[in-house]
């Protein structure tokens, strides 16, 4: 058996040496600012333990038990648990969209083994990058990725507001209500962009589009694709009638855009033409299921009443849709395919009902949900079998008895390449020059690599343009080529005390793991006896191979 990630600890001297070397290099003030390994803005251990000391373990045990029961029933053995570092990498990719930095890996090393994962999670929550990244990912479900009708829509405003809300860990049901019932001007009331994005640029008179809004709300917040029956009754079952969809759309009939932004104009009627009819008919707002949860009194606008119904604690569809989306963000694959198409009445896979109930019971606390999923056995498993002779089977993959192997997203790739070239974490504290370089590279790279758009969790394999971009493209070349100021590859080659340490460091910054014996032997041999430019070239080739590997390009 070949242990996937040997837990070898790098010599502490390396860290000290690098620090000394960096200070020497960074004689100018600017350069010094770039190099100084900042204190990690991490929570103290006591905060972490307090967060974890809740009844978290009880629900995690329940989730684990549910999976175990399912595995036993179908005679599936789970694979071995993954190493701490691999789990840390997954969490970092899910929450910040990038691999951990060397500096972060070293800090993690210092935490007692038992507390490492909870400490890492709280560290990530405290890092603004997580809120920013989650905001972008959720925004895709709310408003898509297009720039939309410029006159009445500001996507950036909405995303930065969402980021603030995620950073404050706002109750998710409150957030959903604010979006659905949003009022005001899109610039000062960012939630209003949820409504204004549906306005047709060429037909602004029509105002917000009821059809698009009904589809967005049901998909993003209820995990129901009722919009399939916009033009005809349900083809694949008799659950939905065309009428159901249009009665739902009628909730948005009063929404309009006036001088003061989005508002609701009392008494506007909604009309639609049903299939087979020649005349349109007036439809009144009505929810398509769980009618008993709809507010009995007629206070508030139709949208406010709809929002109350969507997020009603007993309307489990809302909690399930939220669980499925957060699960998908963490595993890069939803618990139920597709992420916004869940059955209303089940059957549900292991874990779903427990997580949904816990979310409702704990005030729609997204961070708690993330903590529970992160601690679950399913998340902690390896993505491969320990025994190469009996590799991970399809049934193991289907049942979450192994962590799913999925292609990394373009922005995760771009950020990870840039991050791997820097020893310290590139975050809000990083120098502006590095952040700008990182941003410019990323935008161009994502475009070339191919953004998946709203189809976030579709199964996708590698493509030729992606490989060309990684093999020969500017971003990788710039980030691995000889450059003692900007590139870890060059610096590590110069400063590491020996060949082995240089190889180990390169592996940690790119793959977040130590090399295997075979890998260490091969790459140390390449470096042996080299110096100066030749050594930089060898380091560049090593980093090229690491960045071009399947392991770097796939979440695992």
């Amino acid at each position, binding site marked *: 058996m*070949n242990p*996937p990630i040997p837990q070898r600890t790098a010599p502490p001297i390396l860290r000290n040496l690098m620090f000394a070397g960096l200070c020497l290099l960074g004689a100018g003030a600017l350069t010094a600012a770039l190099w100084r390994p900042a204190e990690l803005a991490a929570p103290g251990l006591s905060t972490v333990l307090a967060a974890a000391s809740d009844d978290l373990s009880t629900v995690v045990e329940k989730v684990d038990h549910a999976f175990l029961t399912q595995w036993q029933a179908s005679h599936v053995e789970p*694979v071995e648990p993954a190493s701490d570092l691999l789990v840390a990498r997954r969490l970092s990719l899910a929450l910040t969209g990038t691999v951990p930095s060397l500096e972060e890996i070293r800090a993690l090393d210092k935490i007692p083994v038992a507390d490492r994962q909870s400490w890492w999670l709280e560290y990530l929550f405290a890092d603004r990058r997580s809120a920013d990244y989650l905001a972008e990912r959720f925004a895709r479900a709310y408003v898509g990725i*297009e720039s939309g009708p410029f006159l009445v829509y500001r996507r950036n405003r909405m995303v930065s507001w969402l980021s603030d809300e995620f950073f404050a860990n706002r109750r998710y049901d409150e957030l959903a209500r604010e979006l659905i019932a949003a009022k005001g001007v899109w610039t000062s009331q960012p939630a209003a962009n949820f409504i204004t994005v549906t306005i*047709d*640029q*060429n037909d602004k008179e029509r105002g917000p589009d009821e059809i698009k809004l009904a*589809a967005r709300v049901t*998909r993003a917040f209820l995990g129901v*694709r009722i*919009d*399939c029956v916009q033009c005809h009754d349900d083809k694949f079952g008799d659950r939905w009638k065309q009428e159901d969809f249009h009665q739902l759309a009628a909730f948005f009939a009063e929404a309009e855009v006036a001088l003061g932004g989005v508002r609701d104009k009392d008494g506007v009627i909604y009309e639609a033409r049903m299939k087979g009819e020649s005349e349109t008919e007036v439809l009144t707002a009505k929810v398509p299921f769980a009618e008993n949860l709809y507010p009995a009194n007629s206070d508030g606008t139709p949208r406010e009443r709809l929002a109350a119904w969507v997020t009603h604690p007993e309307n489990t569809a809302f909690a399930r849709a939220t669980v499925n989306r957060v699960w998908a963000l963490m595993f890069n694959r939803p618990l139920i*395919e*597709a992420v916004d*198409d869940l059955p209303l009445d089940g059957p549900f896979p292991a874990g779903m009902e427990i997580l949904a109930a816990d979310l409702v019971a704990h005030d729609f606390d997204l961070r708690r949900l993330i903590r529970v999923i992160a601690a679950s056995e399913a998340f902690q498993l390896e*993505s*491969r*079998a320990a*025994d*190469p002779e009996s*590799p*991970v089977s*399809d049934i193991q993959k289907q049942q979450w008895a192994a962590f799913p*192997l999925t*292609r990394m997203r373009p922005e995760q790739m771009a950020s990870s390449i840039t991050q791997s070239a820097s020893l310290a974490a590139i975050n809000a504290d990083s120098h502006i020059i590095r952040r700008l370089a990182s941003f410019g590279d990323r935008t161009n790279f994502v475009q070339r690599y*191919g953004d998946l*758009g709203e*189809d976030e969790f*579709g*199964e*996708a*394999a*590698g*493509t*030729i*343009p*992606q*490989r*060309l*971009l990684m*093999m*020969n*493209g500017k971003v990788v*070349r710039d980030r691995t080529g000889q450059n003692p100021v900007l590139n870890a590859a060059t610096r590590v080659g110069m400063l590491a005390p020996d060949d082995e340490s240089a190889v180990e460091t390169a592996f940690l910054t790119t793959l977040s793991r130590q090399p*295997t014996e*075979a*890998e260490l032997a*091969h*790459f140390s041999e*390449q470096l042996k006896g080299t110096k100066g430019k030749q050594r930089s*070239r060898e380091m560049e*080739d090593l980093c*090229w*191979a690491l960045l*071009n*590997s*399947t*392991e770097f*390009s*796939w979440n695992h």
Partner: protein
Amino acid sequence: MKSPSSLSADFSCGTHDHWSRRTLLKSAGLSGLAWLTPLAEILALDAEGTGARKGKRPRSVILLWLDGGPSQLDTFDPHPGKKIAFGAKAIDTAVPGIQLAAGLDRTAEVMQDISLIRSVVSKEGDHERAMYNIKTGYRPDPTVTHPAIGSIICHEMPKTDLEIPNHVSILPGRFPSRGGFLGAQFDAFQVNDPNQPIPDVTSSVTAEREQERIDSLKILENSFSAGRGKNLDRDTTLHLASIENARKMMTSDQLKAFDVSDTPKSESDPYGDSSFGRGCHAAVRLIEAGVRCVEVTLTGWDSHANNAESQAARVATLDPAFASLISDLKARDLLDDTIVLCGGEFGRTPLLNPVAGRDHWPHGFSMAIAGGGLVGGKVIGSTDPEGEKEEPERPARVEDVHATVQHVLGIDSSYEVMTPANRPIALSEGKVIKELLS
């Protein structure tokens, strides 16, 4: 269960009807992306024609994409002397009775090879939605991303002897053709003006050093594949396969087809000195090299103001390029092998707006279609010369154009492909436009 690749051998009868939806589903669930392969292989046998069809079907498609929505009145459907022409002139063509808008002089000379559908109708008046509609043959649907016509054809008629991508988008613009639910490997490969080098196809290191890098990579791949099964790359990641194909491409002679800079002036000049002209020239060379589908985009047709001037400027670029593409394909004996489509996302309003512009008009607009053994010099449908009736005579739906192209290529449009979300979707829901066949 048999492995997917061994299945293709059972299809010597050359039909994919035996490949039931159920089997496909099973295979999809069990072996990741592999389900795309066998079907493609089977259809390859079918479409390339191991039997009677051989040599009789066209094999390639060129789409000249007029981005922004060209005005039918100022291109393929002029109504000279009528109010809605607003002074726009028309010219006679090589085919008696067919007129084109003034400015399409060179195109007029090859009219016998081109047919016009003057009655295309759609329900999409927004650029992005209409682009999706025309390129895929389906209206946008939030539950699924449909593949563009070029991706469908590449999927149904895969090529194995090509070292460069078989689906290419030159001057990709805002919405290059995508593989949608068929997968990103069917996305068009995007290149800019053929006078610029293709991005990222040149290695920055020596061949020797690159080989060392690849050798090192293999060591990493060995570590990663352990415990993940023998067919990790083939069935799931296509990572090393893509690297291999990318490297094949980097050193391929076929890459030269992209580069029109060293062709004789006598060959390149007729296309006009424009990026679109060079794109059309490169498209012909790519088709000659064996590429399946090429799209070339000409932007700037969205004439909401000063319609006459801006359309005329675009026509001046389109005319030499389009005409040269047709005559060049013919001269190389490739026109019967290649279907050429030319059009945009919608037409433009019969009436002018207050700033002398024409707005979006999906109710009756034109597409030109040529080659592939289709009838040339024919006009399908007509729009109201007075601009009063919205509905054209003999309306042709967008999907009908798709069904026609697929039919001519030997692809059965009614065949349902299973999406990754297990929803069967027909290659096209349109009806063949029979008038174009004979």
